[in-house]
């Protein structure tokens, strides 16, 4: 699992995640995002186009991050969900509570 800051556009902080966020890798994923938020980044766009798999552990981390953002009046958008990842978000109802976007460009345009 890789999670990297891949850009900053119009003060949105862009993060790209690749690989799998499962019960083993979710803590690292969560920690990295929390570090950026603690550094003051409150407008996050997370590109999940390269995310191949996510389990409930990953959703737990995303929920923790989303709640943290709310306390800072921040904003997080997840982009490019596909296949099983999109299915997991839809089945769990997370599609309706976490902002999603088709692509990073679309997210920048909208937010």
């Amino acid at each position, binding site marked *: 699992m890789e999670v990297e800051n891949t850009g900053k556009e119009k003060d949105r902080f862009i993060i790209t995640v690749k690989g799998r966020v*499962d*019960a*083993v890798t979710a803590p690292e994923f969560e920690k990295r995002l929390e570090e950026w938020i603690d550094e003051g980044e409150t407008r996050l766009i997370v590109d999940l186009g390269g995310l*191949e*798999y996510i*389990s*409930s*552990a990953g*959703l*737990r981390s995303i*929920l923790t991050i*989303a*709640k943290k953002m*709310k306390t800072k009046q921040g904003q997080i958008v997840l982009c490019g969900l596909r*296949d*099983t990842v999109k*299915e*997991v978000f839809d*089945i*769990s*109802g997370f599609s*309706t*509570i*976490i902002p999603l976007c088709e692509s990073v460009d679309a997210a920048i345009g909208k937010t």
Partner: protein
Amino acid sequence: MPEITSSARMEHLERLIAFVAGHAETAGFPVQRTKEIELAAEEVLVNIFNYAYPGMTGDVSIECRIEDDLRLVLEISDNGAPFNILEVPDPDLTTPVSERHVGGLGVFFVKEMADTASYRREGDRNILVLSFAKHRHGTGGQEHAGHVQE
């Protein structure tokens, strides 16, 4: 019948999942269905790692077989505390972020991804049997997909 046993610790999760995925791939399951099977297996295994052996260590075993070239069947067993994962209630999927909890979501995925799921206790073992057809059954025109057979 192919089987894997390891101590019930998170460090073994990816190896156990790879065992399951390998069998699904070899049996010709589509990529997305294989990931759904991995997801169900992960959720069961993580529950066992977290709750089956409070204060001690123990094993988990997975038996994997293909039935009639159509279904992949997993038997996941442990000899921890008696626990039927299928009895965990479904989470409320409609709560907003501020009140949402993740409890119960893993089990919900197991029921959504598997076509059939059953639990039995045999001696000192919990045995969960999950079966998966090559494509997840659709939700159109069917009842809520959470079949539990006792």
